[in-house]
């Protein structure tokens, strides 16, 4: 009697949840949501960049001296490490699109390795600053910094602390994003290993990739702004 049910019950996989028209709409919605989150992240970092801009404008000599005291070689290597990690992420999304499970797992693991390498190098740099008494606070001492030849007067210790406060706050917030990124990629690696991602459904890999690339872009701006303010030879 009730053999013909009026409601057709369709089975959906994760690639098409019932409230989306088609798989493409679902993917676009996920991507748009991630971009909206990244827009809030731009404003999050933007506040720091704004503080940096104002203080750099006011205390240029101290910012130049502080910038010169950073290790430009470690900074450049770290930039290259992050660019390599962005490549492995981009290739990983491609591997997911083509359904190459093993390649995807290898590329995700490589990304995690690059992430840890970045954090390790950053840790070495921070430790060097700690040993040089360049961490703002009670034992701060920047009397070893060379003052730029064009500046009149010495280096103001208070203003120098503002540079290093911003240096630690900005690189610290960036490193926090790296740690979260490494955590996200560990989840992605686990589920990629379990074979959850297919050419039909790889949205988490794509979305996680967007986050990783964004953190890379923040560093692309932090590197010249913090390390390369004034590297001209002092005469």
């Amino acid at each position: 009697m009730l053999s013909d049910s009026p409601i057709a019950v369709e089975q959906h996989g994760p690639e098409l949840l019932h409230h989306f028209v088609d798989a493409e709409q679902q993917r676009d919605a996920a991507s748009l949501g991630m971009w909206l989150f990244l827009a809030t992240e731009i404003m999050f970092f933007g506040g720091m960049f704004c503080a940096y801009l104002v203080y750099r404008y006011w205390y240029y000599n101290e910012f130049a001296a502080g910038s010169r005291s950073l290790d430009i070689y470690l900074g450049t290597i770290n930039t290259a490490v992050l660019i390599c990690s962005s490549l492995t992420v981009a290739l990983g999304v491609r591997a997911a699109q083509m359904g190459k499970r093993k390649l995807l797992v290898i590329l995700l693991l490589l990304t995690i390795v690059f992430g840890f390498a970045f954090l390790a190098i950053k840790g070495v740099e921070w430790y060097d600053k700690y040993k040089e008494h360049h961490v703002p606070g009670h034992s701060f001492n920047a009397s070893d910094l060379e003052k730029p030849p064009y500046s009149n007067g010495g280096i103001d210790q208070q203003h120098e602390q503002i540079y290093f406060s911003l240096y630690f706050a900005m690189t610290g917030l960036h490193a926090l994003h790296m740690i979260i990124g490494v955590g996200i990629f560990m989840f992605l690696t686990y589920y990629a290993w379990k074979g959850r991602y297919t050419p039909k459904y790889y949205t988490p890999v794509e979305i996680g990739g967007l986050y990783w690339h964004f953190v890379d872009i923040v560093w692309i701006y932090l590197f010249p702004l913090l390390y390369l303010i004034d590297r001209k030879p002092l005469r």
Partner: protein
Amino acid sequence: MSEHIMSSKFYYTIWIALLCLTVITAAVSFVDLGPFNTIVALVIATIKALLVVLFFMHVKYTSEKLTKIVIVSAIFWLFLLLALSMADYATRLLS
């Protein structure tokens, strides 16, 4: 997000370009260009960011216009934050 699958060669090309720009920006910072040191550093950083956004993040190939609107407005709001703040601080007389 599109189904567009790029060749791996394409991604390697972008990667090499990003690495070259990184070496260039570090090397140029040692040359005295006066105020242009900062401008060159920021232009190179912006080229690198564009390469990542357009090709690694697939924005060039997305068919979704809303995503592009979100990106452009986010950059516009950041510009407002920086420009209006500096319009105040740069015209202020410090005692």
